[in-house]
């Protein structure tokens, strides 16, 4: 009962603030609603007893990425940007993405229906109190079964970082 209340609270906040984020004109307001949506998602992670994901979501997405978003928004002169011609194909692209996403979700539900049992709901797994600690479980799977993808991802991130530095450096040298 309480679990349901908490879930629907977080889910509702997430959906509402995501909708508000898209519809607001003011970029800072959009950013604030994005923060709220991310925080609500973090709450859902916490409710699933994934406390490491919860903290990582807050530290990385809310505390790191969103701070940089707001930093950039404050540096860009928005009034100028608003008067410039907008990206014309925006609506078409958005429509396509929405259709693709909807198709994906419905396919997922359709496939899940064919799985015997409760479909998407996984019941009969370990009770919540008996679950292994999330941090340790995550570390073990990352550094044993998924070591190669993990390393590939970190190399990719490193390449992106070096690329960004090189591009930024070129521009300052040119000036």
């Amino acid at each position, binding site marked *: *009962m*309480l679990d349901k209340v908490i879930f629907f609270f977080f889910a509702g906040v997430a959906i509402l603030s995501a909708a508000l984020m898209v519809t607001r004109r003011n970029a*800072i*307001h959009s950013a*604030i609603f994005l*923060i709220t949506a991310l925080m609500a998602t973090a709450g859902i992670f916490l409710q699933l007893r994934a*406390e*490491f994901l*919860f*903290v*990582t979501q*807050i*530290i990385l997405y*809310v*505390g*790191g990425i*969103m*701070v*940089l978003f*707001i*930093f950039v928004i*404050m*540096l860009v002169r928005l009034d100028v940007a608003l008067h410039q011609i907008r990206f014309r194909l925006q609506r078409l692209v958005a429509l396509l993405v929405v259709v693709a996403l909807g198709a994906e979700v419905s396919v997922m539900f359709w496939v899940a229906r064919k799985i015997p049992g409760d479909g998407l709901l996984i019941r009969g797994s370990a009770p919540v109190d008996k679950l292994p*600690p*999330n*941090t340790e479980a995550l570390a073990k799977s990352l550094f044993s079964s998924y070591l190669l993808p993990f390393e590939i991802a970190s190399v990719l991130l490193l390449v992106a970082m070096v690329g960004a530095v090189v591009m930024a450096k070129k521009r300052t040298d040119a000036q």
Partner: protein
Amino acid sequence: MNPTVQALLQFLQTWWVELASGFVIVAAVPLVAGYVVLVERKLMADMQARLGPMRVGPHGLLQPIADAVKLLIKEDIIPDNADKVIFWLAPVVSMTAALTSMGAIAFGPAFQVARDINVGLLFIVGVSSLGLFGIVLGGWASNSHYSIIGALRSTAQLVSYETAAGLAIVSGLLLAGSLKIHAIVDAQYQNHVWFIFLAPVAFFIYAVASIAETNRAPFDLPEAESELVAGYMTEYSGFRWALYFLGEYANMIVVGAVATTLFLGGWLRPFPNVHWLNWLDVLPALFTAAVGVYCARRAGKQPVAVQTWFMWGVAWACFAVAAILAVPLFVAPLKFVVPGLHGAFWFLLKVGGYIYLFMWLRFTLPRYRFDQLMSLGWYILIPLAIVNVFCVGLAMICETEYGWNRWVALVVTTMFTLGTALFLLHLHEKRTAAASSATGVTEQPAPQDTYAG
């Protein structure tokens, strides 16, 4: 009975301790923060050979309460062109983040709001860093140049120094092997040593970075009053301003608690494993009793009768605390409260020492320039923190895999880290020299200003 009421009752039955301690934190932290401000003013006065606040209460002991009342009844001004909702929300965000992160701090083995969550330390660090949004949004919503420059500086500063602080915490966590607060302190008990002695460089990096994160001098550029009036708080007044202040001081307590937990042995007394030093358990009681004796001696010298009585009251309160700390030591059936009570005492003492260090640095060092701040963070602290993480890990591998003596391994790797620090400093000096020769500005004496003075 109504099922909703029943569910509520059950909820309260499970969580009443947590709820009650949450209320205690919300109620007590403003008071504590007020007195930290008083201590800071007194210390500043002492270091500048002044008396500081003396009028309200004996030795200014009631000054924080007077200040709070003044701030409450001050006019609350919202600028016309401000973004009203965000302007209203920003200080609340700042304070809420600081207070929420306090929930996971264990002020002693028995004093904690949240149960010992599995990611306790990360939770504290992550949530307290959200207070930045209060500063940034407040600065933006004020619609003033000073505010927005303060907010931008604050963002840049926090993003840079959070990395260094995070990496310093990682070195500590490598030694502790857990994110749980209790497990971290326990690891220091099992190892017979505080982690500050195993990873001194990490502690130093964390101390510097946490000063920058709490926006305190010498890194208080977001509110540098000689350049930006009051930075992001310029347009704030009255109680909203007080909320920012509260958030800042609560954040100081939070970073002090993190440093204490991770590097200074948490609630452990000095030498917790050495049995012939067990008489150290008397120290908390002796310390508070000494404060009480000092207050009693000052009581007779107060100028007004009311102040004499007040001072006697403070003295007796100190004696009562000393008795509470001392009695369980000698009464066998009360022995079980000793770890909790004394743990809280030692923890708060260590946090107080850390905050004292902050204040000392504030009164000693001049403010950094912004480019100096950035280069210190990016060119020195972050590389040094990365090297330090590597070195601490290396020392642990040398100890566990190759059977080195732990101290040898740690001394060697710490030496390596310090060598890196020297190299980084050298590189930095070369870079600044090159930059100044490239722009044609050399270290020449400034031309004499004949109208000066």
